[in-house]
């Protein structure tokens, strides 16, 4: 295992320091014969917020689903904290410290808000700590506290998004994968969500953020990758990306 891990870290000179928290090396993945990502290499360092931006169908969600183990890459390597994870089952990846809040607020509509949150901590056993974290996420999202007994399906879109993030935090992840947290939300709610994302990051969680709302994502992130048709088109600091022609024209809607 550790032998594999070292060799997984070694070859990619292009992808930053070898200490990378998360590293993807030439990852190819998708559904059946359709390869939605075609050789993606990227890295996330401990403590960073990294944005993955791109149009619909660029492969952003597929990238996250491959990292969290829902999809198995057909080529390439993924390592997390020095360990290969591209052959690990999704339920074991959570245990290793990666938590994924999937797109479309995939909450359990027929379970109560509280049950949803507790499921986030499913693989943990320390009760006192779980209760502490529950208190912490309910403080982070006071709206959820008022609705703990309600079924997830009765929440508004924004509340469901909060629940999805809060639930992902209940796993106490070291790396949080956020897929389109702003999708379909009002500008005010988007503000709130992103402010919370910053708070979560300051509290010590590394974040890989997928967003179509590039303006917002690049305000929060330190670095970013632009994906186009399943490949990395551009990698730079958030400031550079905001200034780049490609990003300004295509994703920030500027002339």
């Amino acid at each position, binding site marked *: 295992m550790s032998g594999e891990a070292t060799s997984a870290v070694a070859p990619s000179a292009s992808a930053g320091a070898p200490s990378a928290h998360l590293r993807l090396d030439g990852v190819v993945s998708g559904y059946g014969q359709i390869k939605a990502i075609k050789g993606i290499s990227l890295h996330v360092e401990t403590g960073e917020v990294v944005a993955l931006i791109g149009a619909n169908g660029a492969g952003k969600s597929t990238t996250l689903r491959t990292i969290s183990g829902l999809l198995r890459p057909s080529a390439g390597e993924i390592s997390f904290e020095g360990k290969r994870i591209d052959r690990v089952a999704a339920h074991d990846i959570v245990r290793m410290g990666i938590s994924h809040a999937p797109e479309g607020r*995939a909450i359990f509509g027929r379970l109560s808000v509280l049950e949803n949150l507790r499921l986030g901590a499913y693989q943990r056993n320390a009760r006192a700590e779980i209760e502490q974290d529950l208190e912490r996420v309910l403080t982070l999202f006071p709206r959820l506290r008022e609705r703990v007994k309600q079924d997830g399906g009765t929440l508004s879109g924004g509340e469901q998004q909060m629940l999805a993030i809060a639930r992902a935090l209940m796993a106490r992840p070291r790396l949080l994968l956020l897929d389109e947290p702003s999708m379909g939300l009002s500008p005010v709610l988007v503000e709130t969500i992103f402010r919370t994302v910053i708070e979560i990051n300051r509290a010590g969680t590394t974040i890989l953020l997928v967003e179509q709302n590039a303006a917002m994502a690049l305000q929060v992130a330190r670095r970013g990758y632009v994906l186009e048709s399943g490949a990395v088109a551009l990698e730079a600091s958030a400031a550079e990306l905001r200034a780049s022609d490609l990003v300004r024209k295509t994703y920030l809607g500027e002339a």
Partner: protein
Amino acid sequence: MQEWIQLLIDGITIGGVYAVIALGYTLVYGVLRMINFAHGELFMMGAFTGYYTLNGFEKHSSLNDSVPVLTIAIAIVLGMVVAVTLALVMERIAYRPLRRAPRLAPLISAIGVSILLRNIMLRATNAQGKVYPKVFPRTAVEIGEIRLLYVQIFLIVLSFVFLGLLYLFIQRTKAGVAIRAVAEDRDTASLMGINVDRTIMTTFAVGAALAGAAGVVYGMFVTTATSGMGFIPGIKAFTAAVLGGIGSVPGAMAGGYFLGISEAISTKFFGAQYKDVVAFVLLVAVLIFRPWGLFGKREDKRA
């Protein structure tokens, strides 16, 4: 009046059996969207295990007479163990390999398992029904004109107990919440750290345990175990699950009692030989007019 109460009690008796078996259909449907047509055979295997256990005690000891509570409890537990073991084996070899196949494939596989188990028992018993030893007094409690067999009281109470325990399990335990989560969204459940394969096995095991226990108690009630005895109760319980809204736990319970009571009452008007007809007419009617079930809403809560 007394006649109606008698019909109601008879309905609750058989309805409890339907309800307990129906849970197995509905739970498995919940997580796999598949009807386990071999579920009735788990019930049958439970009944045979009950027979062999109680018969063994009868032949080699006097425990059936001195401590029937103990021998019955052992028979029920063994019936559950056998049914659970079989269910796990069939899930592993007949259903799991077909998880990604078209939905018809596991259905046909289930029918195959059902036929296989039935025929194994047919051969093993040389097509002879096995008659249970008398563990319950065959006399009845009589209140006015209402007659209640001891085994009937036992069956009614035990059904309630099992339904209550199952409900608590599904609602309150971590494994129960995991089953509900997998039923709703398998991918997201695995992102929570839930082992989906293991949860599906748990679901099969829980449904089988209920069917196995029901088989033993039903065997004592009808006093005979036969290789074909799983078919009619199985398909009735399936009807009950559909009546209640397949996938819904409270629906399966309510559907079981509804079907049992409907059948019992129908015997007053059409005679006992038509009660199966009544059950299946109900099934067809529900499938045509309310396919989401009598008690479910269109967007059914698959609790």
